[in-house]
């Protein structure tokens, strides 16, 4: 009886695929399957990176492809790192990144914490909150341009209703001190749901028995939050900050649509300067060097972050 069962199992077990495809080992077959992906990755990610590194040492201009390309050594890097305008663009970028991440993390985590309470209709509100994230940045940019209009915009009217300042005086996009904040508001509005979603995943992963044990020990809600909720959701919050940090360093679409870097250069972030150098001044070599500097900054930051994340996870 036992022998017959073993025979049936052996008969039902499929023979290795490699044996069917003659002459190819299991390892060879695995390589065959992943090679298209690797080739695609090399073609669209790795090759452009190395090509940009090569161009960053030259005076290549994309609008003059037939011109002789001269090797400039580190001259492009030296020029960028001594340029006051680019230094200011870096500070503007840091300002955006700091405030957007701070606001998105605070609001996103608070929303996640509230949604996690499982009140009546929480699924409906989760869907409503997620809507901005699903829209295209081009749509969001144009939509907020109308909202910020001092004559017809709803935003100006809402602020005027609260502060009693006439709506025509609330010029969000053309006022030097308000323009950076107008972009921070839109980015926060659009991407807070993303942070909320990651934080919600973190909060849902906390086992219920830990709270039950804390209840038995008569820990207050405040104590439970600081000793259980926050430490256990921290890796997820850090992951959200990492993703948003990397994205916001490259923030281009929203700034380009809302202010185009203006008024003056108050909202000119690094990516806008990069685009101007690359596609308006056609200094391809110079802009490649600038892109490499930004890449190293983001890559370095990601390294630190992954190390910190591993440390938090090991606790």
């Amino acid at each position, binding site marked *: 009886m036992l022998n017959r069962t073993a025979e049936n199992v052996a008969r039902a077990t499929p023979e290795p695929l490699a044996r069917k495809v003659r002459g190819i080992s299991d390892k060879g077959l695995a390589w065959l399957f992943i090679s298209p992906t690797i080739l695609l990755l090399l073609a669209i990610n790795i090759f452009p990176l190395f090509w940009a590194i090569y161009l960053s040492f030259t005076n290549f201009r994309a609008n003059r492809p037939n011109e002789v390309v001269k090797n400039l050594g580190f001259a492009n890097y030296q020029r960028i*790192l001594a340029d006051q305008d680019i*230094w200011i663009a*870096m*500070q503007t970028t840091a300002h955006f990144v700091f405030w957007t991440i701070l606001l998105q993390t605070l609001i996103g985590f608070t929303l996640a914490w509230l949604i996690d309470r499982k009140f009546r209709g929480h699924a409906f509100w989760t869907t409503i909150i997620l809507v901005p994230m699903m829209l295209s940045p081009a749509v969001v940019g144009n939509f907020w341009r109308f909202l910020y209009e001092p004559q017809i915009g709803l935003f100006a009217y809402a602020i005027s209703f609260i502060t009693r300042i006439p709506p025509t005086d609330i010029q969000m996009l053309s006022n030097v001190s308000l323009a950076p904040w107008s972009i921070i508001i839109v980015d926060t509005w659009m991407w807070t749901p993303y942070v909320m979603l990651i934080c919600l995943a973190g909060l849902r992963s906390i086992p219920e028995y830990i709270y039950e044990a804390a209840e038995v020990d008569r820990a207050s809600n405040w104590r439970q939050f600081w000793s259980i909720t926050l430490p256990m959701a921290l890796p997820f919050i850090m992951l959200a900050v990492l993703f948003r940090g990397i994205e916001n360093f490259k923030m281009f679409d929203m700034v380009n649509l809302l202010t185009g870097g203006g008024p003056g250069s108050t909202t000119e972030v690094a990516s806008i300067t990069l685009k101007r150098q690359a596609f308006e001044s056609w200094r391809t070599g110079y802009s490649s060097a600038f892109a490499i*500097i930004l890449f*190293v*900054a983001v890559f*370095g930051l990601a*390294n630190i972050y992954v190390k910190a994340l591993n440390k938090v996870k090991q606790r």
Partner: protein
Amino acid sequence: MSLNQPIKRKSRWPRWARRGLMENVATALIAIGFLMLFQPFALALYTYSFITMLAGTVMFIIVSKFPE
């Protein structure tokens, strides 16, 4: 006492060049370079930010392969 306990071999790798310490040094370099790149106080610090950050990043990639 069990006779099958694994014998711990003393690593010949110098103590100062262990991964933990060197990774911390590399991380500190990256963080300093990053702050130098985005600070609004001195242009000279901005000028040397990239080389500091690059040194830190390259060092991090290398030392993360070192033994613990």
